[in-house]
């Protein structure tokens, strides 16, 4: 049994097969930043089976290893029950998690156990005289919103990918203390099978030098050739946002984003794409981003080097013509 101090920030690290999820370090960075504002120390939590090795390089300070045979595989029921017990023992003022698929799956239930809500997908934390303000995006990035926690706590916060920069790896080894939650097999109501991928990708957008990517602004399937022609003129691969692939207008394997491919071409030309975070994480490593969108406030312009506010149905045919002429 570990006796952490009341208050402080507890950061929940996520691990898969003994490797920390890449967003764990970002959650830790957010947790440290928050602790600097609200006081108290930062400690980490990690869930695993007893005896499971997890590489903790770069994690400083105390890590509460929540260990139980029933935590060998992730389940929402197991994680929620185990973390509830740890949090009731440590009584942190804030709990910070990475906004991953796994966290989306259990953290809202965990917060509900404390009659709190999760401040989800937070992009920034600001200091005010009356405590921290948490910034979230609304309307798929068109607006920002300031939220304040007003509950009795603990305050649960999950942080968006890429919003809090992971700090340099600490050199000191973590001090790992074990925490044994009480769990019973009957509490766990879901059972997951093996992970699998759909049919192998036959297009590797990851190595494409030039990508023309199309979003819902294209309106209907019959208009896809318009962007295909531009892609052909540029010798580019055609890619798309998720709704375009969901509709079957462009093959699924050409989807860019958090549930599609991650690309980093020399040029990413986004046509009629709004720039939701799930799309941006898949393409913001591009060397040059050009965006064509009729809405000057579209979030895609936030990551664009060059922007054109205009109607793609006028702009794209002109551009195709000009590119052909320049070849």
């Amino acid at each position, binding site marked *: 049994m570990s006796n952490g101090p009341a208050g402080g920030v507890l950061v929940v690290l996520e691990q898969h097969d003994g490797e920390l999820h890449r967003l764990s370090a970002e959650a830790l960075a957010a947790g440290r930043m928050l602790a600097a504002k609200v006081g108290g120390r930062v400690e980490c939590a990690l869930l695993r089976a007893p005896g499971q090795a997890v590489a903790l390089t770069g994690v400083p300070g105390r890590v509460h290893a929540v260990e139980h045979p029933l935590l060998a595989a992730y389940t929402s029921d197991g994680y929620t029950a185990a973390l509830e017990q740890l949090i009731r023992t440590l009584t942190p003022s804030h709990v910070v998690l990475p906004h991953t698929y796994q966290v989306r799956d259990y953290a809202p239930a965990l917060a509900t156990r404390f009659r709190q809500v999760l401040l*989800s997908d937070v992009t920034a934390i600001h200091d005010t005289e009356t405590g921290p303000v948490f910034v979230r995006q609304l*309307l798929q990035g068109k607006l920002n919103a*300031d939220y304040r926690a007003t509950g009795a706590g603990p305050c649960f916060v999950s942080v968006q990918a890429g919003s809090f920069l992971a700090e340099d790896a600490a050199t000191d080894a973590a001090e790992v203390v074990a925490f044994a939650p009480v769990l019973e097999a009957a509490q766990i109501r*879901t059972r997951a*099978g093996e992970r699998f991928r759909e049919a192998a990708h036959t297009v590797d957008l990851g190595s494409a030098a030039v990508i023309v990517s199309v979003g819902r602004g294209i309106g209907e399937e019959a208009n896809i050739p318009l962007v295909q022609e531009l892609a052909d003129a*540029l010798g580019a691969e055609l890619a798309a946002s*998720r709704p375009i692939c969901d509709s079957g207008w462009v093959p699924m394997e050409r989807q860019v984003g958090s549930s599609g491919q991650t690309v980093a071409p020399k040029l990413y030309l986004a046509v009629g794409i709004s720039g939701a975070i799930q799309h941006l994480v898949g393409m913001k490593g591009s060397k040059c981003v050009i965006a064509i969108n009729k809405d000057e406030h579209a979030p895609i312009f936030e990551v664009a*080097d060059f922007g054109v506010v205009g109607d793609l149905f006028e702009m794209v045919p002109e551009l195709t013509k000009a*590119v052909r002429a320049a070849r």
Partner: protein
Amino acid sequence: MKIVVAVKQVPERDAAIRVGADGRWIEEEDLSYTINEPDAYALEEALQLKEKHGGEVVVVGAGPERVTSTLREALAKGADRAIHVEAVDLGERDTLGVAQVLADAIAAEAPDLVLTGLQSDDLGLGQTGVVMAELLGLPHATIIMQVEVTASGLRVKQELEDGWFQHVEMPLPALLTMQSGGNKLRYATLMGIKKAKAKELKTETAAAAAASPSARLERVYLPQRQKHTEMLTGSPAEVAAKLVQILKNDVRVL
């Protein structure tokens, strides 16, 4: 099988968004509204399950009066009944408060399966479904693409990060939060629209909000641009010419 689908009404995607006078929400006056996209996929999954296994599909939506138009659309697509949980103060409630009024309406129906969208297009909280599962005491799974009914309950296909999937099994009753793209969406037929007029749309008044929410939205505002984007202006032909210069000289792909 009795299935309840929680459908949220949200602003149309292309709507021009303006911050309201009090700076706490958007101007709602001239907005047009539609069904939250993942909820449309949740409804589609429910309708297909009903076609395979029989039963009933009930849609539930919380919000002001305008929400009934979205519920009517769901009826036109094939839902059997609709419940409108009327509340004009959802913005003052936190997620737990909204989930609670929905959960109250759903508990009264005692369904076998509850479907929600994985995330709303406006608030984007991505948690109302999971909170409801906790309040209703149901097992749940999130970001689901496909649902299969088995002898012992459900077998669902769950999307994971980086293009991975897994199957998850659970007993019924259960709650699933649905991802977009698992099915092809149907349109309401003329016949469906006509039939919907005769279907039940019941309005219930939401219980009063809890005294103190645990989170409060204080202010909404346009994001500050952090990156300097060079905006190109002119006629389409002029802009195309400028772009070609950039492709040649700056990006060097021509």
